[in-house]
């Protein structure tokens, strides 16, 4: 990887060894898939939208970074 940044790599990758994100893909009823990260017992953070429909990427209700309630226990 080539990092072209004014920040030093040591600063960017600080805490890298302790960083172990746990992602899971959930599929919605309409076939849309979301990559999510468990935040706590009842909430997940949307990490990524997995869709071939460009319109899904403009939806504000599933904007990556949003924390939403989930019935799924990941």
């Amino acid at each position, binding site marked *: *990887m080539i990092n072209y*940044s004014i920040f030093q790599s040591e600063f960017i990758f600080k805490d890298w060894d302790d960083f172990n994100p746990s992602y899971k893909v*959930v599929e919605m009823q309409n076939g849309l898939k979301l990559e999510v990260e468990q935040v706590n017992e009842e909430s997940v953070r949307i990490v990524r939208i997995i869709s071939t429909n460009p319109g899904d*990427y403009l939806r504000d209700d599933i904007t990556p970074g949003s924390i939403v309630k989930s019935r799924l226990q990941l």
Partner: protein
Amino acid sequence: MKNQEENNPTNPNTVNPQSPMPGNDPDLQRSSLNSLKQMGQNNLASSVENDIHTLTIVGQIEGHIVLPPKNKTTKYEHIIPQLIAVEENPKIKGLLILLNTVGGDIEAGLAISEMISSMSKPTVSIVLGGGHSIGVPIAVSTTHSLIVPTASMTIHPIRLTGDIIGVPQTFEYLDKMQDRVISFVTQHAKITEEHFRELMFKTGTLVRDVGSVLIGKEAVDNYLIDEVAGLNPALKRLRYLIDEGAAD
């Protein structure tokens, strides 16, 4: 046991594979409150129609590697499909890009830059705060670029992360990667390759690095950015480009 809120299929913020997608609930007030609690921002009234899409690119440009959470990042897998959506959506006439980035993954940054530059719709960028390193090609990739008077842009040579083999090929590889940035910038801004290289390899300006820092007007004087201005001129320019395109 699931609580009552979790079992409510109309809860706009419930992700459930068995239920409709969040956002279908007409209870906008509740949705707005949730947004305020979770994202620290309020929803705009959905009735406000706007044909300009705003895209913010902030923090590190995140590419092939997920960065530790202390970094504020913009992920390219979020941006690239959004650009396709903007290009495809007939309701969107123009794209405004707000840029405040310290740089990041060279592949991701160039990918975003190429996508923006190849759009058919008018695009305008504003550099706010900083548009450093890989932020430079992104800033110049638009139809028209602006920088606010206090914003800065750092131009410096690229660096390799990880183990480096001490052979001439390493330098040649690094040089090739650098040429990708230089060629993109010089093709999309008025600056010449010679002058850009001069800025990139300048010594005596940065304390721990080689390169140059251009602040506000200096970026325009060096033919990198088109204009020193802020939000209103950016929107006026974008509106002008939209109207001009519609007239063609």
